[in-house]
């Protein structure tokens, strides 16, 4: 698929504060991209820059090959779903949805017809005559969505559109959004601080921190092979253990002066090793040796059981190591017990210091 949106080395600062720093990103047609990061990481500014509400200090933005860097929002072929929906309170739902079409000069009857179609798409066909204040948060969210897709933009920008909804509704809307996106074939750029949301919806995730892009990739890729320490910590739970490689090529974890066989030929000399909790299992030492697992021994300090799985915190020579076991905790996992935590060395992901 061809590239629809190009963000070419864009930067923005407010005073001495750098909000965006050398941002480079391509979005392809029909792609679902999530901008993910903690609050203040610049993801919303990046979205507003694409929409045209913010002009970059340097770099350019291209949509469909056209340079739109200095075009005002009303001349860009994209639409936005705003965080608090920003529905027009003095207009009915149908008028809200028809607004964008009317501003294009489309006659009222045609605009209303197309607006009604868009409302049907979000299952609100019967609500056209209501005012936004007469609707629930979830319904307002759908109206905002209908209003944004009614003009069939090539790109839809969504600024944390689900953050105001409760957990159950949010899960439901995540699926609906994903289906809608597949149905319409519009590229979605979705801002969120919720990594699960990003993982479950997006084709690609752009992880941002302090105005920079830390990593771009599919959810599974980012989870399996985080490029930086920040990504490893931000996406899911992770045990981070510093390591260095020995002269013979072994990897030595700082914890318990522990050595594993070499896994890759070009391993960074020193850095942190990422070990996901689900890759650690409580084992007895004989089983570990026979399965060629590496072992850490620690004292159980905390057990949290959430039913489907249990989380075990263990003190391994002063490091808090988290392991996740399926099901309820077994007999061996009891507070104060010494346990062996085994892992397959190939599950270690290494991040070099210079990265």
């Amino acid at each position, binding site marked *: 698929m061809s590239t629809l949106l190009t963000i070419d080395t864009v930067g923005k600062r407010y005073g001495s504060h750098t909000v965006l720093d050398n941002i480079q990103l391509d979005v392809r047609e029909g792609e679902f991209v999530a901008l993910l990061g903690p609050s203040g990481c610049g993801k919303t500014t990046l979205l507003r820059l694409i929409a045209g509400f913010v002009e970059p200090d340097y770099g350019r933005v291209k949509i469909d090959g056209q340079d739109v860097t200095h075009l005002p929002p009303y001349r860009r072929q994209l*639409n936005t779903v705003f965080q608090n929906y920003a529905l027009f*309170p003095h207009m009915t739902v149908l008028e809200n949805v028809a607004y964008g079409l009317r501003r294009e000069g489309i006659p009222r009857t045609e605009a209303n017809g197309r607006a009604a179609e868009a409302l049907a798409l979000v299952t609100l066909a019967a609500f056209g005559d209501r005012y936004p204040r007469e609707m629930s948060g979830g319904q307002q969210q759908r109206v905002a969505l209908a209003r944004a897709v009614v003009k069939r933009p090539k790109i839809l920008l969504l600024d944390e559109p689900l953050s105001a909804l409760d957990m159950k509704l949010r899960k439901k809307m995540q699926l609906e959004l994903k289906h809608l996106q597949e149905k319409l074939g519009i590229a979605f750029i979705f801002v969120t601080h919720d990594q699960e949301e990003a993982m479950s919806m997006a084709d690609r995730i752009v992880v941002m921190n302090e105005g920079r892009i830390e990593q771009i990739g599919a959810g599974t890729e980012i989870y399996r092979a985080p490029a930086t320490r920040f990504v490893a910590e931000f996406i899911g739970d992770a045990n981070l253990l510093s390591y260095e490689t020995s002269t013979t090529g072994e990897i030595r974890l700082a914890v318990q002066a522990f050595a594993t066989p070499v896994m890759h030929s070009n391993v960074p000399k020193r850095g942190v090793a990422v070990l996901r909790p689900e890759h650690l299992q409580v084992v007895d030492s004989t089983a570990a040796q026979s399965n060629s697992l590496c072992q850490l021994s620690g004292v159980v300090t905390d057990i949290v059981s959430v039913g489907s799985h249990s989380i075990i915190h263990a003190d391994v020579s002063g490091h808090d190591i988290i392991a996740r076991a399926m099901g309820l905790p077994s007999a061996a996992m009891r507070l104060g017990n010494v346990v062996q935590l085994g892992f397959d060395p190939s599950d270690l992901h290494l991040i070099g210091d210079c990265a």
Partner: protein
Amino acid sequence: MRRAFAVPALMLAAPSAFFAAFFLAPLVVVLIASFTGVPHPKSLTFTYYVQILADRYHWNVIIVTFRIAILTTLCCTLLGYPVAWYLVRLVHWQLWRRLCVVLVVVPLVTSNIVRAFGWMVLLGRNGLVNRELMDAGLTVHPLRFLGTELGILIGMVYVLLPFSILTIGNALARVDAACEEASADLGARPVATFWHVIFPLTLPGVAAGGIIVFTLSVSAYVTPALLSDGRISVLSMLIFQQYSSTFNVHYGGALSIVLLAFTLIMVALANRVSERRGSSI
């Protein structure tokens, strides 16, 4: 249950009593006076209403009064909106905005009489305004402002403009910036955004300011009295004459009730219009 009622009742008692004693009671007194007086002070009569409503002179005064009030309201709204826009939207320097608001409000704390005299000086035959107009070559002979409706209008707009600016400014400040961004995002140029989003959202504020200005200007006395130069009469001046010079409280009362009735009708009409247009706020 009883306690639940007792507390709000007690809290309401003082303002209710005050309202009844100093607002309702005098109004009732005026109302009673307007329906009595002929042939002797305590007999019921419609004489004064007939005298007012069947007479061309009185209708003339009523029309002048309301024409000035409506024009004042229009001018205040048309002038107040851009000023409010400037203060709320264009001024980014907080200190300058505060100073501007002070400048807008300061005339309100000086006496109406002083301000009316000021305008008499400015608008007189040899006043500053005429001198400037003649110097600029815009007129050969000095224009007459004093004793014309235009002169009164200028004075009234000056006195009442702050009310428009403050109410409209308040309404403008409340418009959700996200709604404007949504409008631009949906392809509306700034002018379209103004007419379709910003203006409708400020309409309740505009209406509220208009009603304040209208009611104040319809009942204004000092400004029209001083700037009329004895040539133009508005209702409040007739009422004042009846109470202060001829001591006819019945006639004056009837005039007051007529003014009140017409004002209420106008305000009710304005309310209906703004309710229909701005109901969704």
